[in-house]
């Protein structure tokens, strides 16, 4: 069986990793692994998501991360120091509370946390900046070794990864995929997996399948390196500001992105100003530190916030996209689902792309 995967982000590579023991897999990457959202995010990992299906995917992904690091002998520098969701006002606290009950019923160890307790956890945190928060399982992973490790694992299992290879055509005959054309060459394929992240809509169009994911642009910056003092990953749900401290000691953070029409990764001064305000409000001791780098990334999100996973009306053309901002948290398990679907014919009603067709 021949499987062509478009996109070498976390979803594409995880799919390739699980498939390549039993199928002939080629991963097509328009630029290079790490170019897309999987190489541009801040590595926040959590199971504290908004519904049962997503939570299950995230729980399964935590387990896969543990296994894969051992299997491929590569450290993703996954630090499980917890995930903090904080809110600035009562309305947002209520929303978090609703999520909290759901997360508890899904078996997660989540607890409400008092702002003063957060201050004990993070020296320099301003307890007056938030109304409250919830603390649960998760932490920070370094996205680059995740991708490098998966690449290493895929290659060891016989998959081929083709960087700088743009797919220009998907060949469909009688409602069935036959293969694709990339860099002017034809590749035969029984299945084509669309794991192109922010570029998924375009890839889908090549197969004549409509996909209406929202493209979101998000900006991030890195402050200078310091000895560790911020252990958990903090997300302020009221203004979208999040931050953590990397394995190198750099304070990495950003603001949850907004819908965009253009697929560009230019960064802005406006972001720096807003982020500085939001970050310093939460952790005033960050004031006066230098910004080392800033950048932007683009990712896609489905219209209902759930990933789009499954076969389309074109036989053999499979969507594996629309993961939104949870790509790193649920990507490994999405890859596993894709492989089970292709290898075992398992169907996935909850995530089916057909749910958007009226």
């Amino acid at each position, binding site marked *: 069986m021949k499987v062509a995967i478009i996109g070498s982000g976390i979803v594409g590579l995880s799919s390739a990793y699980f498939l390549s023991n039993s199928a002939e897999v080629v991963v097509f990457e328009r630029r290079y692994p790490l170019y897309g959202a999987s190489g541009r995010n801040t590595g926040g990992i959590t199971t504290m998501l908004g519904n049962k299906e997503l939570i299950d995917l995230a729980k399964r992904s935590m387990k896969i991360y543990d296994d894969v*690091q051992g299997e491929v002998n590569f*450290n993703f520098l996954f630090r499980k120091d917890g995930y903090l969701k904080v809110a600035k006002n009562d309305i947002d606290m209520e929303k978090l509370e609703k999520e909290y009950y759901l997360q508890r019923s899904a078996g997660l160890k989540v607890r409400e946390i008092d702002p003063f307790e957060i201050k004990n956890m993070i020296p320099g945190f301003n307890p007056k900046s938030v109304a409250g928060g919830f603390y649960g399982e998760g932490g920070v992973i370094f996205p680059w070794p995740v991708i490098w*490790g998966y690449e290493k694992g895929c290659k060891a299992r016989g998959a081929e990864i083709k960087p700088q290879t743009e797919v220009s055509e998907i060949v469909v005959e009688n409602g069935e995929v036959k293969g694709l054309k990339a860099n002017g060459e034809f590749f035969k394929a029984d299945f084509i997996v669309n794991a192109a992240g922010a570029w998924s809509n375009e890839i889908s169009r090549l197969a004549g399948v409509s996909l209406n994911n929202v493209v979101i642009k998000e900006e991030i910056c890195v402050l*200078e390196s310091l000895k*560790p003092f911020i252990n958990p990953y903090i997300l302020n749900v009221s203004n979208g500001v999040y931050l953590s401290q990397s*394995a190198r*000691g750099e304070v990495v953070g950003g603001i949850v992105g907004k819908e965009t029409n253009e697929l560009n990764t230019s*960064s802005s001064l406006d972001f720096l100003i807003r982020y500085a305000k939001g970050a310093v409000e939460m952790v*005033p001791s960050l004031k006066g530190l230098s910004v080392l780098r800033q950048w932007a990334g683009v990712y896609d999100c489905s219209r209902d916030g759930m990933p789009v996973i499954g076969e389309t009306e074109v036989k053999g053309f499979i969507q594996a996209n629309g993961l939104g901002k949870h790509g790193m948290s649920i990507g490994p398990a999405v890859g596993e689902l894709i492989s089970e679907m292709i290898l075992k014919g398992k169907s996935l009603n909850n995530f089916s792309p057909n749910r958007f067709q009226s």
Partner: protein
Amino acid sequence: MRLEDHPIVKFKRGKEVTIYFNGKPVKAYEGETVASALYAAGIRTFSRSFRFHRPRGFFCAIGKCSSCLMEVDGIPNIRVCKVYVRDGMRIKTQNSFPNADSDLLGFLDSIIDRFYPHGSHYKKFNRPRILREFVTKQIRGFAGAGDPPKKVFEGNASYEKIETDLAVIGGGPAGMSAAIFAARAGAKVILMDENPFLGGQLVKQTHRFFGSGRHRAGTRGIRIAEILADEIKELKNIDVRYETKVFGIYNGVVGAVERDKKLLEILPKKIVVATGAYERTLVFENNDLPGVYGAGGVQTLMNVFGIKPGNVGLIVGSGNVGLILTYQLMQAGIKVAAIVEAMPRIGGYFVHAAKVRRLGVPIYTGYTIQRAIGKKKVEAAEIVKLDEKWCAVKGTEKRIDCDFICIAIGLSPTHELLYQAGCKMRFIPELGGLVPLRNRYGETTVEGVYVAGDVAGIEEATAAMMEGRIAGIDAAIKIGYGGDEALKVREEVVRDLKEFREGPFGERIVSGLKKVSIEELQEAEA
């Protein structure tokens, strides 16, 4: 170690103050940077390197390297070569225990590569999971430079939005000239520099310039800086912002921080990038040992702050910078043991070389530095002869006793802002590195963004000034200022610059410029 008498420069020292270095009082003078005051007090180890914990000292003196990061008044990772002393200031070395001079982790240097080579944090101790998670936690404790801030930074942050005609980034010879010529034509200009003074690297050029009278030949660099600064003071439509660091150009909007506390959002019609250059270093054993300096760093120390870099120096590189530095050192009463030049002949002008020779400094051509010798600071250097294939000839090693080594092997353009702004760049060895494509007036491929001076290609101050004038006046013309007179002046300077480069020393530059000229590239395409 402070110079008192100097034949050319008169050092005006400010009020005496006391700063505390790792708790010990150090005498300093207002107007000195923390780095230079510590240097004058004989302190050589400024920090320790991230992984190997090797001693790091004073190096570039202009905020371009990261050798001098220290904790200042509780705020970590401060480049102390860019911070001026204040009475009672508390300076602490970081990333070391108990301090940078006697760091207990210094032993890592000799052993870490044996048991934990580079990349080990990904590849080692991955199985079983418990071991991996334990090691990952431990690694984190070693990472990080500097302790988390002990107190909240006191700067009162403010914000200013500025609408103007022209934003000039960099107050060296090119930037000052651009500002003057644009302002003369009538444009409203904001001129920004990261230093508390204008002049850029001219402020340490105590020698006289060459060329024709029109190019200010015979005038010392320091004097040229004063002349330009005086003219800027006269021009009321130039708004000078000192200690202002520009960090980005976002779609024509310039972001900058003034005096570490005010954010500037500048909306100019045109931008001139004149950010200059930084020093190149050379690969040899122990090239990070305190006492190995960039030539410009030594000039800053000696000619700007009046501090002796050491007693005996070795100069690597016999270009004009190396030769001029040699006699500047000797003017200040410092011995120069030798000049080492890898090429078979001397790189700089004959007059400079002759002057150095008269003073009795040996110049070893066909030699290079093989290693710096010393434990925590330079005690000597080993030089070696090179064969025609640039390989060291065994048995020709020579030990040269010295307590500092100056690397004077050239400069690289400070190109980052241009790259970030989206200018098309090209690597041109003749111009010193990565430089932007530009048209005959210095405008890059990003409309409205001009380039002038060393950042456009390493040359020297005279050409930088002319490039600045051209960029400044062209920007003004494009905005709608100046009329026919400005057009005339612009073409005159273009002609002047062309003339200036028509000599044997201009050949290399001219051939480099051909490769980045938008007009020439378009012609080649057509």
